[in-house]
């Protein structure tokens, strides 16, 4: 539901103070509450100075041209990627989107603009957790396995390069990604050490989880902020709608613009549990799409019946209801681990949890000077102690901002400056 529901509720209920606050150096972030920092858009005043439009075109790659796509996904045809291009020769940066996000999500667009301005070509890649990737580009069709996803991503990157090689001149390669895309970048970089197709010069992990399993469970638990749980979502949502209507009535009109939203936000400041519930709903909505796509692609049996034919007119409501009531924990135990156990019977849940972590490639991360990290002290997806672990792991290669929540400050001028300097090799 993320694009429709969450963004609409968000933009309706919450606001972005446009008024300037005293700021310059040092780093200042307007939201001290990490949930607000994560959910709310950064007020324009703090935005990095980036161009409004950059030359970008989309193209498709077909990693599995022979694959028969189920009719229920009739609108799926190839993995869509985008290229932001310089006219002259330049280094190229691959960016991997976060959970459930596409090549053109707002965060991706901002990165494209910032990196284009700094003189790079950019190829943007949709997250392996997105339906478009699962259907067209995933070999296992079971996202979350960092090593397997890294192979798929590496394959997509090569196909993407083949697709654009006649249009641009490339002088070298870098890699980055945010959130899940951040941890995936680390695994792709390690794969690259062996295959050497790109031989990445610099790799930046932005707000990555330390352990995917831990972080996803933190996000999942935020749903408990809906009183009565997910089966009580309707009552919660009705309440939200009522408040919206009350706001509209009190203000005498309704408009979907920054000014109105700011006024509404000031009059009805959002509560902590509301923000947490929104984060939880947003995540669950993405994961529901992922789980359904993964299940259908493999013939069903998890949230859809096994061996049925779904067409372009099949009613999906029952599966939507089930998928929305399926946590990552359920996916992990009932679908994910059993699937990978088929090819490796010695695999246990504990082993798998360990594999979903930066700790599993710690020696590599310690030694690889090309890899840097940009994170936030108050990142809501990190468990206690994990920020300390990241600092210790990356040492001087880690930049930790004191505030910003989870990816809330990616478009902050200081963050963009750090990112650009990092790829130019002049961080610090």
């Amino acid at each position, binding site marked *: 539901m993320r694009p429709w529901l969450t963004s609409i509720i968000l933009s309706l209920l919450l606001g972005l103070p446009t008024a300037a606050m005293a700021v310059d150096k040092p780093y200042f972030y307007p939201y001290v509450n990490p949930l607000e920092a994560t959910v709310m858009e950064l007020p324009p005043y703090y935005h990095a100075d980036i161009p409004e439009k950059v030359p970008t075109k989309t193209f498709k790659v077909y990693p599995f041209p022979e694959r028969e796509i189920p009719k229920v996904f009739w609108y799926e045809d190839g993995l869509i990627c985008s290229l932001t291009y310089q006219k002259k020769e330049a280094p190229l940066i691959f960016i991997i989107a976060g959970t459930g996000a596409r090549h053109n999500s707002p965060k991706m667009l901002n990165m494209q603009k910032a990196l284009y301005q700094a003189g790079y070509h950019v190829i943007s890649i949709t997250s392996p957790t997105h339906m478009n990737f699962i259907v067209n580009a995933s070999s296992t069709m079971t996202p979350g396995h960092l090593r397997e996803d890294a192979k798929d991503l590496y394959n997509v990157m090569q196909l993407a390069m083949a697709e654009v090689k006649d249009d641009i001149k490339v002088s070298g390669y870098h890699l980055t990604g945010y959130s899940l895309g951040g941890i995936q970048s680390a695994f792709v970089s390690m794969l690259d050490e062996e295959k050497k197709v790109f031989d990445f010069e610099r790799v930046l992990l932005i707000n990555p989880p330390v352990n995917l399993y831990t972080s996803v469970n933190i996000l999942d638990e935020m749903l408990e902020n809906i009183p009565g749980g997910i089966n009580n979502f309707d009552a919660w949502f009705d309440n939200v709608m009522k408040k*919206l209507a009350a706001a509209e009535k009190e203000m005498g009109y309704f408009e979907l613009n920054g000014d109105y939203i700011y006024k509404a936000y000031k009059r009805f400041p959002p509560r902590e549990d509301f923000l947490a519930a929104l984060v939880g709903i947003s995540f669950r909505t993405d994961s529901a799409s992922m789980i359904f796509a993964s299940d259908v692609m493999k013939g*069903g049996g998890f*949230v859809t019946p*096994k061996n049925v034919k779904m067409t372009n007119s099949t009613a999906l409501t029952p599966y939507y209801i089930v998928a929305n009531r399926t946590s990552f924990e359920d996916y992990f135990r009932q679908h994910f681990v059993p699937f990978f156990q088929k090819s490796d019977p010695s695999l246990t849940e504990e082993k798998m949890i360990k594999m979903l972590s930066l700790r599993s490639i710690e020696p590599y991360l310690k030694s690889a000077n090309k890899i840097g990290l940009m994170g936030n002290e108050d990142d809501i997806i990190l468990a206690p102690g994990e920020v300390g672990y990241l600092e210790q792991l990356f040492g001087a290669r880690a930049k930790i901002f004191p505030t910003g929540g989870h990816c809330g400050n990616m478009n902050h001028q200081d963050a963009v400056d750090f990112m650009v300097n990092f790829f130019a090799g002049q961080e610090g």
Partner: protein
Amino acid sequence: MTLVHKFKMVLLVALLSVVFLSGCTTLPKAGPDTEPAIRQQAELVPEGTELDVEVYDPIEGFNRGSYRFNYYFDKYFFLPIVKGYQFIMPDYAEDRVSSFVDNIYEFNNFTNNLLQLKFKETGITLSRFVLNTTVGVAGLWDPSTHWGLHRQPEDFGQTLGHYGVGHGPFIVLPIFGPSNLRDTTGLVTDAVAFGVAGPPAWVDDDTTTLVFTGVAAIDKRKRVPFRYYGSGSPFEYEQIRLLYTKKRELDIAD
């Protein structure tokens, strides 16, 4: 008139093809080797719970076909026209067209505010129309909003809702998009009232009306960022259906 007739014919053919292409069944086809899912609704949702997402949708097969038709219609016909329009027109001129179109349609806001006995809103709407038509040069500008007289959008679907009419079955209209029986009735009623007693009747010139209708349609599509299958979710139909229903409840409650 021949042009109008032709357009109506095209619409009819489009509608019929949707009906024929859509089929009826919305259940997945089971085979001899079909097995139930590990996770099922019956076990996850307490019995007797009515979920909002299960919007009354008895003609779902048709609706999904219509939704698909709209995707193609948008992709190969409507959006290219909108794109061409945006390419030809300077942004400034596009904004003037939007103001003009909104001003003409104040007619429906006026009648429906009046029908709901919302006298203050009716007054605001009338003042807006007068101000924007005169000071705003035939509605090309919208000085009223600037002066705090905000638009008071109401349609006949809302009027019906205001007097307690339920939403009825969900309907995805070809071209027009998500609706339901109540709002479709409203849409038709508003269109008829607009044609019979509104600006087209005042002008009384078929060509002008036709041109206006075309431009208004393009302008309105331009202003809606929604793209069919643009959400990247396999459940987009379910989400739109729920959101449309909820949004209309909110519109009616105000």
